[in-house]
């Protein structure tokens, strides 16, 4: 085993490690096995005591932990300084971040600070053992095209990685790891921005980006009231509710639910598209779902091109029937 390292940026919010981090650690295990590098996590927090064990359990052999009151939440100036200093000192080969609102803001700053390449929003990672390079694959042009990106001459190789693409793989409950405490010196960093307050919207019982099932509605739903039919199915499945832009623009449902290029990118286990035509901008946000079911009355609809199962029919018949048959199944 070489002494080279793969780092996963461990994103915590209020002391809870994000799902994206656990997925990345799991993918990191695979990359570590291929490359022979050591899988490590980098944690910035106000208190790491409750977090370290979880990172070991998902495969981190070493956790670089920076603890300080200024690190309780993501503040770009502080976070980028701590991580960039550490990168310059330890010279990891690879650094991966979840493509979340934190990762996608922090990583670009760090990339210019340490003069590294950065590939955004990857959906596939692999390691080329001949050239010893990370292969970073991502959609571009709204998913019309996939591109594989390399970073041959700069280190570290960095990517942000789309949540929900990789599966979590917990190794055990008492995995061993080592924590390395990182000295935090923020005295030279100007205090020029601060979080005043945070409002969490109780939009849904289930968050779209982290949902395993999504029931999504398009113009075919017909009216705002009819979304209830989808909500019923969602409730039965423990799913989140998504929407096409047409329905959001019509004011049937809040933008928060919009899936697609100008909405959220989702990657659930199962995506059920109801009355959605499958415009490229919509596909951009859901195409990488594991399994896609499309319900549409037009057999020619584009959505069927990306579907694993296509149900041709009226959603107003199919969806309530589906809900009731699933209910019956549960009993």
């Amino acid at each position, binding site marked *: 085993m070489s002494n080279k390292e793969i780092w996963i940026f461990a994103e915590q919010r209020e002391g809870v490690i994000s799902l994206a981090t656990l997925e990345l650690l799991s993918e990191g295990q695979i990359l570590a096995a291929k490359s022979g590098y050591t899988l490590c996590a980098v944690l910035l927090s106000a208190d790491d005591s409750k977090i370290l064990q979880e990172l070991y359990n998902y495969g981190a052999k070493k956790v670089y932990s920076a603890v300080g009151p200024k690190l309780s939440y993501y503040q770009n100036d502080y976070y980028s300084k701590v991580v960039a200093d550490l990168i310059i000192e330890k010279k990891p080969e690879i650094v991966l971040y979840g493509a979340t609102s934190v990762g996608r803001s922090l990583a*670009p700053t760090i990339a210019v600070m340490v003069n590294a390449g950065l590939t955004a929003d990857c959906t596939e990672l692999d390691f080329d053992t001949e050239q010893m390079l990370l292969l970073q694959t991502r959609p571009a042009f709204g998913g019309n095209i996939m591109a594989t990106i390399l970073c041959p001459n700069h280190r570290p190789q960095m990517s942000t990685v789309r949540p929900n693409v990789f599966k979590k793989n917990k190794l055990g409950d008492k995995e061993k790891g080592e924590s390395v405490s990182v000295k935090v010196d923020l005295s030279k960093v100007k205090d020029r921005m601060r979080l*005043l307050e945070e*409002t969490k919207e109780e939009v849904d019982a289930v968050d779209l980006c982290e949902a395993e099932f999504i029931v999504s509605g398009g113009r075919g739903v017909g009216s705002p009231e009819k979304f209830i039919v989808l909500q019923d199915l969602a409730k039965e499945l423990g799913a989140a509710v998504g929407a096409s832009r047409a329905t959001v623009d019509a004011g049937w449902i809040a933008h928060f639910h919009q899936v697609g290029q100008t909405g959220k990118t989702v990657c659930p286990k199962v995506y059920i598209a109801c009355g959605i035509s499958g415009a490229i901008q919509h596909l951009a946000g859901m195409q990488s779902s594991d399994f896609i079911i499309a319900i549409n009355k037009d057999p020619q609809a584009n959505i069927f091109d990306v579907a694993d199962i296509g149900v041709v029919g009226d959603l107003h018949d199919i969806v309530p029937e589906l809900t009731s048959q699933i209910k019956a199944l549960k009993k």
Partner: protein
Amino acid sequence: MNIAVCIKQVPDSDKVTIDRETNRLNRAGVPSVINPFDENALELGLQLKDKYGGKVTVITMGPPQAEEALRECVSVGADEVILVTDRKFAGSDTWATSYTLSLAVQKAGDFDVVLFGKQAIDGDTAQVGPGVAYFMDIPVITYVKEAEKTDTGFKVKRVTEEGYQLWEVDGKAAFTVVKEANTMRLPSLKGKMRAKSATIITWGADDLGAEDAKIGLKGSPTIVKKVFSPPIKTNRETIQNEDPKQSVKELLGKLKERKLI
């Protein structure tokens, strides 16, 4: 308030396809538009100007034809437009683009705020805003929906996965702007006239004093190894029956088979 907005001209993503034989982009004949998120950045800039007075400068880096996009910006109210263009910039990734744009913004003026779109729809990287901000040594807040001036700087609303955050920034700042922020205004007749005759300030690498090693391909740490079409699903199963009950039964059967429920 002195406001800068960085915009990019992008191919209308609806129309970009890939040649399945050569794996090259078919760009010929694809219309170009202002990156949709940059319209939101521009509108936010115009609204700040409406409220606090001042000037809006729009900067783009791209090929000569990006001039069209700049004229469109003038038609809705941009005061000054700058085209950063040079053969030497070809092949820039987000690192090199951030460096080049940061030089252009600094040369263009002393701005209170520099606005970006959330991301450009050709690459969807969302990296240039934070990159430019770092090179300029100003704080950046991403995913901004609303911004207002305060005595010391700005107060902004930032969209997160879970809801909203309210941030306070001292002094100058950079923001990347989300779709929900606004809808770009329509050009006025007067604006359209102004756009036709507007002067496009044009700068190349030498005007910016850009270091050769940091621009274009040479300044780009990442390279594209290959592009390919996303695999199409060939094994789709179709369910179509008169009776919805039957369709649902078949659907559930297939889901059970795959252990999805």
